[in-house]
C-alpha cells in the first residue's frame, strides 16, 4: 500500500513538497515504514539524513505510533525528527 508521509524539521528538506509517498506491504508496521524511509533516503539523499530517521518517531495526526504497531490504512502519517520546541 502507499503511505503519504509528511516531513518536518530537518527532514522537510528531503522533498520541497514537504511529503513523500512510500510503498510498503499491506500488513506493514512502523518498523517497516522506517526501513522503507531509510532505504529511500540512502538512495536519494545523504546517509546523514538516513541516520536522523533512526532517531525519529512516526505519528498520525493524534498520536505517536509504537514501533510494532501496524500502519493505519488511509491515514496521513508524519515522520518526526528529534524535537526542539520552545
Amino acid at each position, binding site marked *: 500500500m502507499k503511505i503519504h508521509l509528511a516531513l518536518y*524539521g530537518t527532514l522537510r528538506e528531503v522533498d520541497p513538497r514537504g511529503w513523500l509517498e512510500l510503498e510498503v506491504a499491506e500488513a506493514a508496521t512502523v518498523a517497516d515504514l522506517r526501513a522503507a524511509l531509510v532505504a529511500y533516503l540512502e538512495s536519494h539523499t545523504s546517509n546523514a539524513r538516513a541516520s536522523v530517521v533512526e532517531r*525519529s518517531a512516526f505519528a498520525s*495526526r493524534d*498520536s505517536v505510533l509504537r514501533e510494532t504497531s501496524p500502519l493505519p490504512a488511509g491515514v496521513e502519517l*508524519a515522520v518526526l525528527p528529534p524535537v526542539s*520546541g*520552545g
Partner: protein
Amino acid sequence: MDNLRTLVVDASQTRLEVADAIAWVSDPRFGGIATFIGCVRGANLGRVVTGISYDIFRPLALHIFADIGAQARREVGDPLKLYIAHACGRLAVGDIAVLVAAGTPHRDEAFRACRLAIEAVKHASPIWKQEHYIDGDSAWSEGCSLCDAQSAEAGVAVAAGSHQHPHGHRH
C-alpha cells in the same frame, strides 16, 4: 477541557501576548499565577542568531498540549487553569516563541504546573527550530527523540521527571 487553552499561532499573522495568557488563567479562586515566556535568544553555542523558524505538526501538537494539561491536572489537582501557546514560522530575536501560564489557588501548584507544562512542550511536542545566523547560514537544532517516549503521555512523564540528554545539548 474547559480549563485548558491551547494555541499554535502563525507568527506572520499573530503575536503571542502575555496579557492574553494572564487574563485567560485569572479567576477569583486563584491567588497564584505563574508564567513562562520563551523568547528568541540572540546567540547560541557561540554564534550570533538573527532569528528562528519554527516548524510544527499542528494537529498532533494540539493533542499533546491537551495531554500535558491532563498530566498537569493529575499532578497539582483542581482547580487549575492552564494556557499553552507556541508560535509557528519565522521569529526575530526577542519575539515570544512559547507562552505558558498556570493559575491556581496558591503559588506552589502554579509554579509546578507551569514548569511541568513548559518542560513537556520542549521535550515531548512535535516542534522543530531552525536557527538563522548572522553569516547567512541556518541550522536545525538538535533535539529530543520522541522514540524514547513512544507516546505523548510517556513523553510528558519523562519531561516532568529526570531527563537525560545523551546528545549533549541544553535547553
